[in-house]
């Protein structure tokens, strides 16, 4: 995990112990449990595999580790620690809530900081559209020598003005913190941040952040549900189930980020990657078309409709044209020959439901992403594909479809991998840049 350039929970423990000897005021174990044991207890195969090396390093590295920590203490940015990813549709916000605050710190903590901390951590919804994904929260995380929880919050990009208003009301600017932001919105709304909330943004490249975030989160998640997983038996729906995947040696890796649009990156090492291509047919297209076709207005609503629909009434299948498989070209009868092809015919247009249309939209967009991804993987000669982005949020249909499509059309050569924090990696990557900001 050192490979990824980040410290795993285990290593964090080691540093915390060092810190303990340096100054007890810094250590305040959360929940009264020694952080080290909790990390060890929660570790899956990953931490086990890393065990011996990690122990060894703890002994031999104690002095350099302390030096590192000392320098960390000096360079450590002041709270609050935020990372932001302002996308075309959603703003993703990660917030590190320190849980090891000393009495002294508590006393010194300015009112505005406290208010922000309490506001964010005591709610799970903000306004009408802001949501904290509680299930994704990473507790007992040690970041730059501090222990706390990483919170994952999102709200629609169009609500950004309200967010800025809140920042102003809560005197965010008085905290003299740097706000690390990535995504297109970091550029588009930079001036708004300055004029509306008196905030200076540190703008970061979204793909850099994305990769940093993926590698970091994968390295620190040692407990609970595995961060990286795949679908076993994707071609057999009845036996298809999630399985943990060890992403320890991830390279080379095709990283497919499905937000409003899609970016496909080939990652060869932590700082060697290229954007292979992208497509404008992404999550925004799914939702946009669904809104137009069904009158729905939210992603959840669209997905819910899709789950009840039948795409084969909308799409024209190979068997609709050839009566069965098109054997000459190895095309199975169930394959879609023409997405929305049945809708050329008026009678069929009149007979489909909104649910069918939502489902067909989902299947069309998902299959297309699968198809482009597969071609990129072939061109780049990469077998491992990680799908991220908020299009996959609560979207098991698409994930299973991607898993299926990649497996089927590559004859088992390609593996579709998914990450639990699917949409937040850019924001996490941005947060990690905070350390370099001062």
């Amino acid at each position: 995990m050192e490979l990824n350039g980040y410290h795993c929970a285990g290593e964090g423990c080691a540093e915390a112990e060092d810190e303990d000897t340096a100054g007890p005021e810094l250590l305040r174990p959360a929940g009264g449990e020694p952080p080290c044991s909790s990390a060890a207890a929660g570790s899956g195969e990953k931490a086990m595999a890393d065990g011996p090396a990690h122990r060894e390093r703890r002994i031999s590295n104690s002095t350099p580790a302390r030096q590192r920590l000392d320098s960390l203490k000096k360079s450590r940015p002041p709270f609050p620690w935020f990372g932001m990813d302002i996308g075309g549709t959603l703003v993703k916000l990660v917030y590190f809530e320190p849980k090891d605050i000393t009495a002294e710190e508590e006393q010194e903590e300015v009112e505005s900081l406290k208010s922000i901390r309490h506001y964010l951590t005591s709610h799970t919804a903000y306004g009408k559209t802001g949501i904290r994904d509680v299930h994704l929260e990473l507790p007992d995380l040690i970041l730059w020598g501090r222990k706390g929880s990483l919170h994952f919050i999102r709200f629609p990009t169009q609500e950004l003005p309200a967010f800025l208003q809140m920042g102003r009301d809560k005197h965010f600017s008085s905290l003299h913190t740097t706000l690390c932001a990535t995504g297109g919105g970091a550029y588009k709304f930079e001036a708004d941040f300055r004029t509306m909330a008196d905030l200076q943004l540190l703008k970061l490249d979204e793909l850099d952040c994305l990769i940093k975030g993926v590698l970091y989160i994968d390295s620190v998640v040692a407990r609970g549900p595995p961060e990286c997983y795949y679908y076993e038996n994707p071609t057999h729906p009845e036996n298809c189930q999630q399985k943990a995947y060890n992403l320890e040696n991830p390279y080379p890796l095709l990283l497919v980020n499905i937000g409003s649009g899609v970016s496909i990156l080939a990652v060869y090492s932590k700082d060697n990657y290229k954007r292979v291509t992208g497509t404008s047919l992404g999550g925004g297209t799914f939702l946009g078309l669904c809104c137009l076709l069904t009158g729905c207005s939210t992603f959840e609503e669209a997905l819910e409709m899709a789950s009840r629909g039948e795409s084969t009434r909308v799409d024209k299948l190979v068997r609709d044209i050839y009566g069965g498989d098109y054997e000459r070209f190895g095309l199975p009868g169930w394959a879609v020959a023409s997405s929305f092809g049945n809708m050329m015919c008026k009678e069929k247009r009149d007979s489909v439901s909104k649910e069918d249309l939502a489902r067909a939209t989902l299947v069309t967009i998902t299959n297309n992403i699968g198809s482009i991804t597969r071609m990129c993987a072939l061109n780049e000669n990469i077998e491992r594909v990680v799908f991220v982005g908020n299009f996959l949020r609560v979207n098991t249909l698409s994930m299973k479809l991607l898993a299926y499509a990649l497996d089927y059309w590559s004859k088992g050569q390609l593996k579709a991998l998914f990450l639990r924090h699917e949409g937040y990696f850019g924001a996490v990557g941005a947060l990690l840049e905070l350390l370099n900001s001062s």
Partner: protein
Amino acid sequence: MATPGGTNRASHSLDKSITLPPDEIFRNLENAKRFAIDIGGSLTKLAYYSTVQHKVAKVRSFDHTAKAGVQEADGEPLYEISVQEEITARLHFIKFENTYIETCLDFIKDHLVNTETKVIKATGGGAYKFKDLIEKKLKLKVDKEDEMSCLIKGCNFVLKNIPHEAFVYAKHADSEFRFQNTRPDIFPYLLVNIGSGVSIVKVESEDKFERIGGSSIGGGTFWGLGALLTKTKRFDELLQLASKGQHTNVDMLVKDIYGGAYGSLGLTGDLIASSFGKSATADKEFSQEDMAKSLLHMISNDIGQLACLYARLHNLNRVYFGGFFIRGHPVTMHTITYSINFFTKGEVQALFLRHEGYLGAIGAFLKGAEEDNPNQYSWGENYAGSSGLMSVSPDLNPMQRARSGTFDMLEMDRLERQLVNLPLLQDPSSYIPDTVDLTEDALAREYWLYCFEEALDGVVKRAVASQKDQPEAAERAEKFRQKYRHKLQTLRHQPFAYGSLTVRSLLDTREHCLNEFNFPDPYSKIKQRENDMALKYYQKVVRSLEELSWEQRQFALVRGILAGNVFDWGAKAVSDVLESDPEFGFEQAKQQLQERPWLVDAYNQWVERLKGPPHKCALFFVDNSGMDIILGVFPFVRELLLRGTEVVLASNSGPALNDVTNSELQIVTERIAAMDPVIQTAVKEERLILVQSGSSSPCLDLSRLDKVLATVVRERGTDLVIIEGMGRAIHTNYYAMLSCESLKLAVIKNSWLAERLGGKIFSVVFKYEVPSKAQGLH
């Protein structure tokens, strides 16, 4: 692939009115032998093979042996001309809307008299639907063929046989259509067929192809989703709608997310980040036009991207697009081209085909006609009988509605000879015969179209005069006039109709139209008279040349060819002179010539070369009859022979203007041989041979020459190519690069062209080129 909808009662009653007389559509139907039909979602393509009987002028030598040497005195012509009937093979392809299918089948049934065929090959999604109707009406058994293999077969056929079949589409360029040259090797290529879905096929050889991929997002998606989003039901209307829309109102662009460009990735602000991304925000109405446009972009970009990924994976750079999504629609050709350019950064060009809509029918036909071995022959597009490429958009194409609008025709003539590349082309794949592309050069186009229109009266007059004995000739000539004028009008509006518009294509179209109305050789008598006349002077010319010193003679020989080349009925300036002054002679012609230094003057290098060792074998593409061939070319050839150089004289297989044809040249050569022992010996020893070029054009396409000629050239180790005349050395081949020495000589008999080249009328071009060593090596 089948598209539903189609015929209902209401449209049936409208079907009966075909705007063109059916016998002009289904030409030569009475001789039709074999049928194939391709029924698509909205269009039917019918193919049949038919024989065409038309008149040809034949020349036959009189028996002079009995009275050798006498004819000069009594003025009797040296050969006779007779018009004979000849039967040639022709392929007919007709495209019409499915609603006309019943009317058309009825017409075919009534006119089908001579056919022995029992089956009709059928392909396309609609073949099944109309199977019973066809079998009932035509009493032919419908034999279904696989759609994809027909498509590929048809594609191979047009790529091989139709010059300028493929084109690049550039919406904002001076000419939207940039035609590609026929390549000696058409394989491998990628065919992206955009029907209701997309099939991506890699074609490696005539019989080897593989569907390497595809996509379900295709024409059906545009149509189906478009119909849902806009309530517009027809595909064409959806495209119309799209062409009026603004996709930026519906799509989320990079700048909508970034406020500008995403510079570090080189993504411009106007790039679509998320198709339909703006419609995800509720409570907003979007215009039908905007949604259709967004949909069009989404689908075109997606197809383009996948095509590029497949092209890259298989290392292919020729990608042809077809299918109903593309078929002549400027809107989709533009968006697909844009997408390909974007995704490959210009490395791959999107190619389209002029006869894309016919591929399935052609392929199905070829499958049924294998016993006729159509692939063993070369075929040529008949400009007289083919509609040419029509823009579908009425805005773009005002001619369309005036014309039938519903019926489109393609005719291919079987050529008597198989055509191949001249083996001496330096780079056959980059060879372009034509010097000026009138599709791109608007000024030149204007001039030449005007020029050909002006010359039309004279051609009509000449045609009538050539058949004085036939009273209905005037009527036919009038029909010819109308047809050719109409072609010229079409070309004025749509210069791209038959591929690149060139002087050659204008000349060839005229020849095709003349043939169409049974004027196979309007100049036959003029040629005969001029040959007779020139022969009388041959010996005198040769004698006077022999009196000259070597240096003087070489110059006189070149001047002789140039003076002979003034006698050109194809050039208006000259035909006016010849018409008014029949006594205009060889010496007078010499007076007209420009003095040295000529406009292009490599004479000194040529003479220097002649001082060196003789050439092994010279290939001479000759031009006009009469003075040109007899008093210009033959003395020059004689000198080459005396130097020890073998000579191959290449002349037209069929008549064109006053150009000497192969059969005429044979008689002329016999006559000269009888007078000149040098020629006689050379003929006997086969050091002088005559070959056909395989062409019937006043111009010359070195990539389509008779196979026999190519063989002779190779076997003889030809190391000098001489191309004579304006049509062959200026309008075409002026820039042709050969792998051996070449001589291009002509007199510019058109002041506009001379001016363009920086000279005056009767300027001389004498271009002698020696390939550099490095180029000569391969």
